[in-house]
């Protein structure tokens, strides 16, 4: 006999900015710098009609540059990058924009040896959404024939392409990190594919 799960509910309009402050930068942990290629991951969150969603919360969870998750279920947990935590949170501004500084997630093989493409998990919370929306973000232009158990769930090539963060340009900052853009369309013509949760 299992207990019924508690009901999910929307964050409403007033998710505190304080809870997102400082959480958009994943590139260090305990004063140590994360290994691997540091990147910017930016984009906007929009609803129907491409209207920006303000004060939406975007959270990500990803492996380190070597494809290791900082979690004991990962067989390589002991080798997790001491400078990388793997979780981040950002809040969208009035134009619906969010930004993370993170590392390019590493590819890894599953326990049966199947390859996983570099990816990160992403979820969106916002007023009007009684449940989180979850998707998986891949890197590249989607042109290469990539096989991945999550990517393979999306049959339509046009929808598949919307799961890729696009290499944008070098950012203008002093450190000029490679920038990737991932726009999130919760509802609309170019809708982001979301998974059953």
């Amino acid at each position, binding site marked *: 006999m299992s207990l019924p799960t*508690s009901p999910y509910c929307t964050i409403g309009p007033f998710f505190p900015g304080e809870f997102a402050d400082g959480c958009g930068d994943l590139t260090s942990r305990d004063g140590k710098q994360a290994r691997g290629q540091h990147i910017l991951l930016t984009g906007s969150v929009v609803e129907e009609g491409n209207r920006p969603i303000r004060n939406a919360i975007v959270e990500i969870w990803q492996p380190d540059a070597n494809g290791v*998750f900082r979690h*004991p*279920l990962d067989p390589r947990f002991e080798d997790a990058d001491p400078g990388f935590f793997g979780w981040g949170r950002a809040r969208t501004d009035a134009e619906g924009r969010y930004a993370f500084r993170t590392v390019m997630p590493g590819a890894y093989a599953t326990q049966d040896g199947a390859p996983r493409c570099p990816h990160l998990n992403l979820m969106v919370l916002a007023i009007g959404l009684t449940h989180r929306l979850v998707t998986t973000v891949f890197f590249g232009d989607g042109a290469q024939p990539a096989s991945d*158990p999550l990517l393979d769930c999306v049959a339509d090539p046009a929808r598949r392409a919307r799961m890729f963060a696009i290499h944008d340009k070098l950012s203008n900052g002093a450190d000029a990190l490679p920038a990737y853009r991932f726009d999130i369309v919760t509802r609309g013509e170019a809708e982001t*594919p979301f998974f059953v949760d």
Partner: protein
Amino acid sequence: MRGQPPIPLPETIQVEYEPYQESTQLARYIQDYPRSFTRNPSQPLIRRPLTLSERTGPIALERRLAIDGEDISSKEPGGPRAIGQFIAVTGRVMDEDGAPLARAVIEIWQANSAGKYVHELDRHQAPIDSNFTGLGRFVTGAEGQYKFLSIKPGAYPVMESDWWWRPPHIHFSIFGPSWMNRYVTQIFFPGEPLNETDLLLNAVQDPEARDRLIFETTPTTVGAVNLLTFRRDFVLRGKRSTPALD
């Protein structure tokens, strides 16, 4: 956490996650809540296998996020207390087997007793309470238990609506040990007249499931510290046992 024995990290046990059952959850589309119609995906949600990536998740978050003391009814320990009904909120966080989820980070945010949030988007003409932020971050103990002291939030109007007042409620955001049991909700107070008309609370069809969004009262006590205690346990998704056949 100081002075307490460290609580071990989650076990490396395989946990099963079923999709949320609609009957236990809020509807996605809610009449008179226009954003639910402009924000929910128009395309069907896609079924996916659960891989290591989804089964893992941020753990030991209390090392990354600042954890508050249990009393958020004042800004500093011993400082002037916020105006309002002094309350304790307590309960347990567990999985579907009833097993405690230790070291789960809990974030709460709420209005003050006048129904006003400390937030740049709150346009309600109610006063800010200089002794109250309405924010708290806590971590569950070895038995999954949590407790914090606050003041009871007030009701407030939804400015985009011409009738809807939100009943008193506290927002909860909970990090279980997996990406699959990341959980966010709002918990309401028992016996509030506005509960009857709230669009969100009443978006849960099953009355028993709806009650899981409402605090339970506990027997009143009078002593050295006087407060009303409200209890809410949370069941996060995930089970490790195979249910027995009956």
